[in-house]
């Protein structure tokens, strides 16, 4: 076939840009919402084509390999489903007057820009370009978090902006250091920033330099991942922004940032003299996990609750990759995918709930399964899935991570298990009130769009019971890449 990798990549990057431009000009939110869906859908289809692209010829700027293709597909897919959800969500916001048509236009344009930025970060073979992509995505999300223009929204956006910028700065410094390390080996110019080249040459780099570099990168991108104690922006940004953005933040942006960390972990792992990245990531992961687990108990805002649960899961994933080894890496990758799907699905449900009940306060939302059975049970399923209970995919990944960890490092398994248990307790502590008991608040029928939720949870369910062999083979290959 005449199809080459680059076309797919180009499409994945260009479609959002064009769409953004168009959307910025289009009035009328119905049309633009449709268009938004269409563009995201097209991007998703284009990304599917990347499976068939040949991975052998990495370009200087863009490339596709087994690691990022999955992320791109996942990214574009969740982007698509979220756009569907957002279509049914945003209309309601307009009715309640929280948003004006002008803002909606801006919103849709920014949505595409953000998707484009993340795709850029994922497809980049150039660490500088990757950095640019992530910065782009971050800044757009900052704008969207503040879109409601309420005090709280601005506060959240501002906090996000400051911490994010510092993170960006640190990450850039790390990137520069990596270039410096590469410089004596691969010589001047673009090559010093091409990831494939870096990995190939990494063994000759100066260890001390990339050690420092990795610390800066870990902290810089780790701020985006939301690892404690760098997490501060995350809960508020999730809670105050529009729910579709919360879904995308939790589902995608965190993954993209973690993806960046992984790229550099590979470089570091290729260098014998360098410090092992594992311990750092394991420590950060465990801290985030346990910390978030405790924080979950005292949440009163439903969206902030699930934001903290994202921190918790990012902790688990980071821990898994820190542990390394085929089984743990496999678990980490699986957990990443499962978490994006589940968490965004939960945010879909939560978004509708908050709209119907007219509040985000957990205390004011009671007995959902009575007033809104479908929505309520969707939420229950989501929480069950995210808490790591079978038959959902998160259970499988946690099973792999915990069991492999305990066999190797029994002492590390203790805090891991404790954190998981605590988090589960907190989630169900809240769910008890949310979904069951005598209902409060309005029982107005909801015009929710269930399709995205059902698709997400359906996929998670299937993955929990049966992973297609292709996927498995490919996951395992990536797990080996990660070492």
């Amino acid at each position, binding site marked *: 076939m005449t199809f080459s990798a680059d076309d797919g990549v180009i499409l994945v990057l260009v479609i959002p840009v064009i769409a953004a431009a168009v959307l910025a000009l289009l009035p009328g939110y119905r049309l633009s919402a449709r268009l938004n869906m269409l563009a995201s859908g097209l991007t998703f289809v284009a990304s599917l084509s990347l499976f068939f692209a040949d991975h052998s010829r990495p370009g200087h700027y863009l490339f596709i390999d087994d690691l990022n293709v999955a992320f791109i597909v996942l990214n574009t897919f969740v982007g698509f489903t979220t756009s569907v959800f957002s279509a049914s969500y945003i209309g309601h916001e307009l009715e309640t007057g929280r948003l004006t048509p002008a803002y909606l236009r801006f919103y849709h344009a920014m949505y595409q820009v953000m998707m484009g930025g993340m795709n850029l970060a994922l497809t980049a073979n150039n660490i500088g370009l990757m950095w640019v992509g992530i910065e782009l995505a971050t800044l757009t999300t900052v704008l969207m978090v503040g879109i409601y223009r309420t005090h709280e929204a601005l506060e959240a956006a501002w906090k996000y902006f400051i911490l994010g910028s510092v993170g960006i700065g640190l990450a850039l410094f790390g990137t520069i250091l990596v270039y410096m390390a590469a410089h004596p080996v691969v010589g001047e110019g673009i090559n010093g920033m091409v990831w494939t080249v870096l990995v190939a040459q990494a063994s000759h780099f100066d260890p001390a330099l990339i050690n420092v570099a990795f610390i800066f990168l870990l902290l810089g991108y780790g701020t985006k991942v939301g690892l404690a104690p760098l997490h501060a922006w995350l809960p508020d940004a999730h809670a105050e922004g529009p729910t579709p953005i919360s879904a995308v933040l939790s589902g995608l942006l965190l993954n993209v940032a973690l993806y960046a960390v992984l790229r550099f972990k590979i470089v570091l792992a290729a260098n014998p003299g360098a410090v092992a990245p594992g311990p750092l990531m394991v420590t950060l992961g465990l801290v985030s996990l346990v910390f978030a687990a405790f924080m979950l*108990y005292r949440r009163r805002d439903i969206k902030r609750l699930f934001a903290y649960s994202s921190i918790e899961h990012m902790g688990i994933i980071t821990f898994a990759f820190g542990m390394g080894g085929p089984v743990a890496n496999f678990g980490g990758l699986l957990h990443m995918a499962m978490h994006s799907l589940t968490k965004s699905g939960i945010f879909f449900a939560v978004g509708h709930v908050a709209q119907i009940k007219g509040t985000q306060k957990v205390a004011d939302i009671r007995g959902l399964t009575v007033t809104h059975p479908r929505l309520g049970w969707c939420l229950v399923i989501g929480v069950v899935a995210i808490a790591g209970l079978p038959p959902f995919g998160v259970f499988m990944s946690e099973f792999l991570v915990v069991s492999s960890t305990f066999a190797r490092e029994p002492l590390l398994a203790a805090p891991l298990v404790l954190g998981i248990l605590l988090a589960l307790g907190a989630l169900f502590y809240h769910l008890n009130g949310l979904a069951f008991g005598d209902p409060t608040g309005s029982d107005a029928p909801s015009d929710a769009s269930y399709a995205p939720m059902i698709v997400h949870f359906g996929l998670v369910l299937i993955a929990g019971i049966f992973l297609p062999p292709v996927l498995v083979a490919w996951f395992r290959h990536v797990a080996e890449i990660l070492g």
Partner: protein
Amino acid sequence: MSVVAFLMLCAAALLGVALLAAAIARTRAATTIIYGATLVLCITATALSIAALALGGAPSRLVLPVGLPWIGAHFAVDALAAFFLAVVNIGGAAASLYGLGYGAHEEEPHRVLPFFPAFLAGMNLVVLADDAFSYLLSWEFMSLASWALVIAHHRDAENRRAGFVYLIMASMGTLALLLALGLLTGPDGHYDFEAIRLGARTPLASAMVLVLVLIGAGSKAGLVPLHAWLPLAHPAAPSHVSALMSGVMTKVAIYAFIRLVFDLAGPLPWWSGALLLAIGGLSAVLGVLQALMQDDTKRLLAYSTIENIGIIFIGLGLALAFRADGMDAAAALAMTAALLHVLNHSFFKSLLFFGAGAVLTATGERNMDRLGGLIHRMPVSSFLFLAGCMAISALPPLNGFVSEWLTFQAVLQSPDLPQWALKVMVPAAGGLLALAAALAGAAFVKTFGITFLGRPRSDQAAAAHEVDRLSLSAMALLALLCLIAGIIPGFIMDAVAPITRQFAGDALPLQAKLPWLTIVPAFESGSSYNGLLVFLFIGFSALLAVWAIHRFASHAIRRAPAWDCGFPDPSPATQYSGSSFAQPIRRVFLARTPATREEVLMPAPGDMQAARFRLTIADPVWDWLYEPFAAAVEIASLQLNKLQFLTIRRYLSLVFLSLVSLLLVLAIWS
């Protein structure tokens, strides 16, 4: 197709029924359809598993391309699995039959129907699973389904709390099992049980596995001190589900324990047996004492489950100890006793919960202090419930006695044990067992006497009515099984022989050969018991007495007001209540313990109101184990929560500090 394939089909069909139920739950006919389907499926599965057992339980395996990638889902049926599958599905069939009638009284059937078949499927799959992943998956799925059933009546805050505690404890157990399996599989992930059996491990690892499994399976089975969730959760569910949870799910936990400890964990030291003995004896006595203190029938039954689990674990502990010392025959005896008690308890506990459910539907009351005299209004239920009470109180000729008798016989093998600690501990455990048995008798005299005998203590009790035939037939079925298992236990003992041969290395002498269906634990000891003959003797002599008296002496009878030492008919309030019945034993065993507190509230002199007596029953485990943990979480979360309210500058300083500290680490090391 092999047996396991057919059994898998049954489990899959149950899942299908669950989905169907989710679809049609709100329709009128749903109850009949769903419970009918589960009934049929459970009977089929029972037949299959009994067949598998009868064929000597040669393991048959099945690998499906689902579950954990690159391993697949392994399922297998060996003798042990077949036995427990029989237990599960007999209980399931009875519960379905009962549900056909009982389910009609459910206000929100859509909160029960979908999860009931799922729960059954989960339990079946746990027993069928043959690799670590499918095993844990089914295990947690089972917990999840039962959780949904526990909070089926979710409007009651107590039930929500019960469900919460239950889920936490269940997940803790799952994580413990997960760790144990992680230890067994090793880092490179040999997850299927066959590989685990082959793998070698250090004694330390085996011991750790034992402890972890004891936490994991023990919390589900309700061993003291991990039992606290059980008396909350089991009664909260609808009665036929309570029956399943108490009668069957706890047995699945026993299965998990046997599978992981006897089968996979490899050889264990003798002290593991001692550990089990201690925990089992403790559970038995504390469980039954707490049961005796309860006035809520279902809660009383839940606590008595803890007692019976304790008895089973005493049997298992003996088996471990004997096996560790190479006394295979004795180990086989102890294990047989434990397995028999598993079966028996599943019978009579389900029966009793059905009875409690019948009372609940007839009167809407669970508190026996507002019941009484039901024997006149619900004769059949009360008769069947009485049978259950006799069985669980270990009275011959019913089945409860047989398993306890065998356990005693196993205890009597202790003198040959080499270790002194065991020599001393085993008879002590036997003493605890005897104590528990006697107290159980008292507890169930209380249950039956207060609930069914005497005079009604409330209008609901006075207006009670007999329940529907389907519920009654379910109870009758179980009562019949109790009798059969009581008078011809020999066949069951022969049926479990392959299991003991596999895990204890020996089996009891073939019982079916013995004259008059007698059972003997071992030939060298002359001990023997014959339920059938005892049954016949009692029946014969009772009939003889009745015949002789009515033939030769008077059979005139006159109804008159009660004599009661000449007090003219006092109000029903003068009857002994549940707590007053338990008072002497409370005084003897629990006086001045944290478990009970009695206080007399005297009015001030000249104050006209009556003095009041207040009694509070508490489960000390809450204060000693659970509350501190909860408090710790409370405090920690409160402290950490301050981090939610820092200023941006402070957050920045966090980033700054972590950067500097990491750089310092780098500067100092490397």
